[in-house]
């Protein structure tokens, strides 16, 4: 399979990466090189094979249902580019 220019633009939008028209041709070439490389997987017989979900067999650990963290709002917003009090600031989302 290979991607066309329209697909490159669609993927970029899904990935939330702005792409200029000048970038599309080389991105298309690079993505197609990667897709051509992974194409060889189609020759593997995977009938009846379970997809891997965990590389080491382990029971999913569960945490105790209790509050043992928090009250660190200052830490949470410390690195934000724009804040007001303990809120992150973003452009208007709801009209």
């Amino acid at each position, binding site marked *: *399979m290979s*991607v066309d220019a329209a*697909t*490159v633009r669609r*993927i*970029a*939008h*899904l*990935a*939330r*990466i*702005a*792409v200029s028209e000048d970038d599309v041709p080389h*991105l298309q070439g*690079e*993505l197609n*090189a*990667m*897709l051509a*490389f*992974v*194409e*060889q*997987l*189609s020759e*593997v017989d*995977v009938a009846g*094979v*379970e*997809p*891997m*979900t*965990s*590389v*080491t067999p*382990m029971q*999913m*650990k569960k*945490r105790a249902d209790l509050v043992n963290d928090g009250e*660190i709002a200052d*830490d949470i917003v*410390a*690195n*934000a*580019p*724009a804040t007001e009090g303990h809120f*992150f600031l*973003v*452009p*208007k*989302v709801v009209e």
Partner: protein
Amino acid sequence: MTDLTSLTLAEARKGLAAKTFTSLELTDAHLSAIEAARALNAFILETPDQARAMAREADIKIGKGDGGPLAGIPLGIKDLFATRGVRTTACSKILGNFVPTYESTVTSQLWRDGAVMLGKLNNDEFAMGSSNETSCFGPVGNPWRREGSNTTLVPGGSSGGSASAVAALLCMGATATDTGGSIRQPAAFTATVGIKPTYGRCSRWGIVAFASSLDQAGPIARSVRDAAMLLRSMAGHDPKDTTSVDIAVPDYEAAIGKSVKGMRIGIPKEYRLDGMPAEIEKLWEAGAAWLRSAGAELVEVSLPHTKYALPAYYIVAPAEASSNLARYDGVRYGLREQGRNITELYENTRAEGFGAEVKRRVMIGTYVLSAGYYDAYYLRAQKVRTLIKKDFEDCFAKGVDAILTPATPSAAFGIGEKGGADPVEMYLNDIFTVTVNMAGLPGIAVPAGKDAQGLPLGLQLIGRPFDEETLFSLGEVIEQAAGRFTPERWW
């Protein structure tokens, strides 16, 4: 006094205990070496004040006789590890001046055991690369050069800063991470020792995530013994990482010097690639001969799905990366580029903040997970991954204790030489190491010789899950036979 930077970690520990020198002297010697080696671009942030404060504290503890196992040992930290109060960027513009308010579990365990932080080390952006050329701080120089040439070579990647700094004697050891070969390939390129432990051995908490089902932390060190000492402190169960395994961490150092007599070492025929340089083949044979003369039994084994590991990796890893990197949105931390609305803010921030390689991988990951393509790509790759793991399980079930392979298909190459037109050319660097991540196994790279141009080459040993000890025992046999390799100083 001999130059303190030329000691191994084990030798430094002895000197500190015997009070031949102090941690402050040892730390200062390394800080001076770092200053004199800025041309290598291995350190992207030096923390001399913090280093000296930590060294003084270690000296007091050593004086009282209660220094930890790494008391007073100066280390470098890959910039993927969050360090409290010290800028952590994963070498990406998108993290900008991110200063964590917390410490990664792995580094906190090193400080618990008395180690000293010299600074943060360069790496490929978000650990995506095999040459350290994708870092937003620029490429790292390999302390090794071809004989009679002054071309600067890459140190490998993604832990290129870690490998270069250890090889150039700027730090006594370094933390690193390995998703597809990022500890072992740079170790091989710089004649250092690097071990990627079994998935789950080290906590991933506080390490910038790339591909969560493959990422593992491990050390890069000057000797096998040094790597064993560092891993013992880095490893261990952490309730904050659900994939960290709750089993005891052995005293890895005790495995050094243990007899390897009677061990069965597999030589996988699928690793003998067409067009593989003759010197790599020769090195592999030499490694087998060294292990045989130490009493091990060499057997040919088959890992039939080997050739599919790299293509499967280039579906699984980008898919996980596209999900992990969704958090860089210009809202909560790091870079923000303005937009007319929230979507444009995201798109402009990520276009400006991510480098070319990261964008490629996020996009391919987004594509293989998108509606209509998930089954054909992602699900199939995860099935192939099951088959790759089964290959190893079958091999170990036949009584094989470890597998010996070359670490890389070539020695280090020049900056800008690879991957310019076709990204796959660069990806092929990880052909021998990536299988180990796909199967979650431990793997160690040990320096084993040089090529015709005088560049270091390494061998890789792959072990059973959670049997890093066997790798240390076997690795030391190779180290003893091959000797140690130190680059000539030019920087």
